[in-house]
C-alpha cells in the first residue's frame, strides 16, 4: 500500500478519457472502468458574474455544441428575470437551434458514427474517418456534407452573431432581428437540409439496412441494454429540441415521469465515484444501484434513440414517416439497441430540417420585435433544451442585482455517463476472451461508446472537448498488456 502512495502521480497522468479493462486469470473481463479525467468548475468561476453574461460564457463549455449552452442559458435567463420573449424572438431562437441540429447531427453521422458502418468496423483506423467516408460514397457526397455544415454555420452566424460561440441570446429574446434578405437565405438552406436529410436516410438504408451483418450487429445482444430513457416532448408528446416537458419512460416503454424542466431536482440526482471527475446522474425516484440496467436501476439514457423512445411521434410529416419506418424495422418501442441511435439521429436530422423550414417561412420570423425588456427583480432561473447529446439544464440563482450566487449545470453527455459505462462493460465482456484484444475488437468496444456521440467537453464542463479515448487492458497481475488510444472524432 504505502509504496503505491509514494508513487509520484504526475509521471502517471493521462489526460484522456480512459477505459480500464481488467482481466481475470482466465483472460476474461473481470471489470471495466470508464474515467473522465478533467474538471473545470464553470459552476464556481461563474459566481459573481452578471447572469446575462452566461449565454456568452457557458457556450465555452463546449465548442462543439455552444449553441445548446447558449440557448439553455438564454432560457434560464428568461425565467430568472421573469420575462417572456416576444413570439418572433422565441421563433428566432428555435430557428437558430434547428440549424444547429442540422449541422451537428450531420457532423456526427458522417465524421464519427458513420465511418463504422460506411467504411466498416474492421477497416483500419486511418480510413475510419470522414475522408474514408468520402472515399466510399464519393467526393460530391463529401462536398454535400461540407456544404451543409458551412451553410448552417452561416445561418447560425446570421442569427447568433458568430458561427462558433454565438452571442445574440439575452433574457427576453435575441439582440437582433433578421431581415427579409437573410430570411430568404435561411429558407434556401432549410430546403437543402430537408433534401440532404432524406438523402442521408437513403444512404443509411442502402449501406446499413441492406447489409444483414450490420443489422445483426445493431440488434445483437452486445449493443442492447434496457434502461430508462429521457427526452423533451411538446404538448403532443412529439420530439422537441428547444422547449417542452421532460418525459421519462421505463425499460418497458411506459411513461415513468413527465415534468417541467424547473422540477429537475425532484427527478434527477448525481452520484460521485472516486475514479472519475464526471458524476453519474440517475433518476432520484428509482435510486442509484450502480452500473446496472433494468427497471430497478435509476440509470437512464438521453440520446436520439431515447428521445424517439419517449416521444409518441415526430411533429413534422416526413420525419414522422421515417420515425414509423424506424420503429417498424426495429420492432416497436422501446428500442434498446444502442447502435440504432445512428438511425434515430438521422430521423431527428430530418425533423430539424423540416422544423427549420417551417420557421424560416413563418411570416412573423422577420418581425423587428425580438426582445422584451425585463422589469422584475431576478431570482431563480432554470433553462432546459434538448442538446443532441442529451437533456441540457442550466440552473442559476442571483442576488437582486442579477449577480450569480449559485450555478448548477447538468449537461448533455453527463446524463449518459452510466449507460456509456455499461455499454462498454457489456461490449468488452462479450468481445474480449482469452486475453485476446485486437484493433477490430477494440473498435467494436468503441462503437458502443461512440453511438452516444459523447462530448466530454460538455460532460465534465472540462477540456479538451472530444476527449481522446484510451483503452488500457490489465492482466490479473495488474500489468498492462495492451493500451490502445482512440479518439471520438467530431
Amino acid at each position, binding site marked *: *500500500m*504505502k509504496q503505491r*502512495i509514494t508513487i509520484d502521480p504526475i509521471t502517471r497522468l493521462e489526460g484522456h478519457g480512459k477505459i480500464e479493462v481488467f482481466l481475470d486469470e482466465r483472460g476474461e473481463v473481470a471489470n471495466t472502468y470508464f474515467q473522465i479525467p478533467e474538471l473545470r468548475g464553470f459552476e464556481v468561476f461563474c459566481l*459573481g458574474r452578471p447572469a446575462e453574461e452566461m449565454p456568452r460564457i457557458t457556450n465555452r463549455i463546449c465548442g462543439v455544441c455552444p449553441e445548446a449552452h447558449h440557448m439553455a442559458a438564454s432560457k434560464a435567463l428568461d425565467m430568472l428575470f421573469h420575462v417572456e420573449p416576444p413570439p418572433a424572438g422565441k421563433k428566432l431562437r428555435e430557428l437558430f437551434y434547428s440549424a444547429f441540429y442540422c449541422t451537428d447531427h450531420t457532423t456526427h453521422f458522417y465524421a464519427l458514427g458513420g465511418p463504422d458502418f460506411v467504411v466498416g468496423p474492421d477497416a483500419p483506423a486511418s480510413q475510419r474517418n470522414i475522408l474514408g467516408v468520402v472515399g466510399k460514397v464519393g467526393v460530391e457526397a463529401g462536398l454535400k456534407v461540407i456544404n451543409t455544415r458551412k451553410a448552417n454555420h452561416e445561418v447560425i452566424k446570421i442569427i447568433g452573431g458568430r458561427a462558433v460561440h454565438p452571442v445574440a441570446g439575452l433574457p427576453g429574446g435575441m439582440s437582433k432581428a433578421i431581415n427579409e434578405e437573410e430570411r430568404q437565405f435561411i429558407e434556401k438552406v432549410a430546403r437543402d437540409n430537408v433534401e440532404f436529410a432524406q438523402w442521408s436516410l437513403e444512404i443509411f438504408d442502402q449501406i446499413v439496412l441492406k447489409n444483414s451483418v450490420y443489422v445483426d450487429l445493431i440488434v445483437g445482444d452486445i449493443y442492447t441494454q434496457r434502461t430508462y430513457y429521457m427526452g423533451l416532448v411538446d404538448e403532443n408528446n412529439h420530439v422537441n429540441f428547444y422547449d417542452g416537458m421532460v418525459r421519462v419512460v421505463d425499460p418497458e416503454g411506459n411513461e415513468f415521469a413527465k415534468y417541467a424542466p424547473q422540477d429537475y431536482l425532484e427527478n434527477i440526482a448525481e452520484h460521485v*465515484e*472516486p475514479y472519475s471527475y464526471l458524476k453519474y446522474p440517475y433518476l432520484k425516484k428509482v435510486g442509484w444501484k450502480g452500473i446496472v440496467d433494468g427497471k430497478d436501476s435509476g440509470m437512464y439514457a438521453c440520446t436520439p434513440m431515447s428521445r424517439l423512445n419517449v416521444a409518441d411521434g415526430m411533429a413534422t410529416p416526413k420525419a414522422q414517416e421515417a420515425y414509423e419506418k424506424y420503429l417498424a424495422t426495429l420492432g416497436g418501442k422501446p428500442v434498446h439497441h444502442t447502435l440504432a441511435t445512428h438511425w434515430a439521429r438521422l430521423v431527428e436530422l430530418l425533423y430539424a430540417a423540416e422544423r427549420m423550414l417551417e420557421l424560416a417561412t413563418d411570416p412573423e420570423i422577420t418581425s423587428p420585435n425580438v426582445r422584451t425588456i425585463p422589469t422584475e427583480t431576478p431570482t431563480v432561473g432554470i433553462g432546459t433544451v434538448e442538446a443532441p447529446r442529451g437533456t441540457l439544464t442550466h440552473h442559476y440563482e442571483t442576488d437582486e442585482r442579477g449577480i450569480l450566487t449559485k450555478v448548477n449545470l447538468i449537461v448533455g453527455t453527463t446524463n449518459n455517463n452510466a449507460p456509456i459505462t455499461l455499454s462498454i462493460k457489456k461490449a468488452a465482456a462479450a468481445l474480449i476472451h482469452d486475453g485476446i484484444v485486437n484493433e477490430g475488437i477494440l473498435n467494436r468496444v468503441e462503437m458502443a461508446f461512440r453511438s452516444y456521440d459523447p462530448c466530454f467537453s460538455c460532460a465534465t464542463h472540462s477540456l479538451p472537448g472530444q476527449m481522446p479515448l484510451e483503452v488500457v487492458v490489465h492482466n490479473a497481475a495488474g500489468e498492462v498488456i495492451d493500451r490502445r488510444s482512440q479518439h471520438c472524432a467530431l
Partner: protein
Amino acid sequence: MPKRDYSLDNPAWGTRRPVIVGFLCNWCSYRAADLAGISRMGYPSTLRDIRIMCTGRLDPTFVIKALREGADGALVMGCHPGQCHYDAGNYKAMRRMALLRRTLAQFGVHPDRIQLAWASAAQGTLFTETVFKMTNAIARLGPLEWHDTIDELVPRAPAMPSAETLVEEASHG
C-alpha cells in the same frame, strides 16, 4: 527613538518591512515630498517614489505592475482637486483609482493597499502624515507578496491523499 517592528502589526511581516510604491505628481505632491525633506520631517522609509508629471499620467498598469513586482501597496498623490497644474488630471486619476480599487478587490487585493491622496507643494506635513497613514494601513494588512501567489502555480509536490484517507476513499470505490 522607538524600534518599529512591523510583525507587531501583523506577524506575517517577520523581519521585512512594508514596501509602498509612490506615484507623485511633479507639481504638488513631489514638491511636498521635497519640502518634507527640506524641513527634515522624518517618515518611514517604506515609500519608494516615482515622479510623473501629473496624476493624469497614472496608468493603472503602473499600480498593477508595482503590486505584481512585490510591492505591498501603491500610493498615488497629486494636487488637491481644483488645483491640478493641468487643470483636471487629478480628477481622471480619481476615477481610475476608484475603478482600479474595485477591480483589484476581485483579485483579493484589499482596497486600502491602493490609495489616492492629495498634497499641495506647501504641505510637507500632510505628505509626511500620509506616508505614516499608508504605512500603518499596509502594516496591518500584512505582506502582499504576489510572487508567492503565482510562483507555485503548479503543485510540484501534489496534494496526495494520506495513506489513511486513501484506503478510506478506496473503500467507497
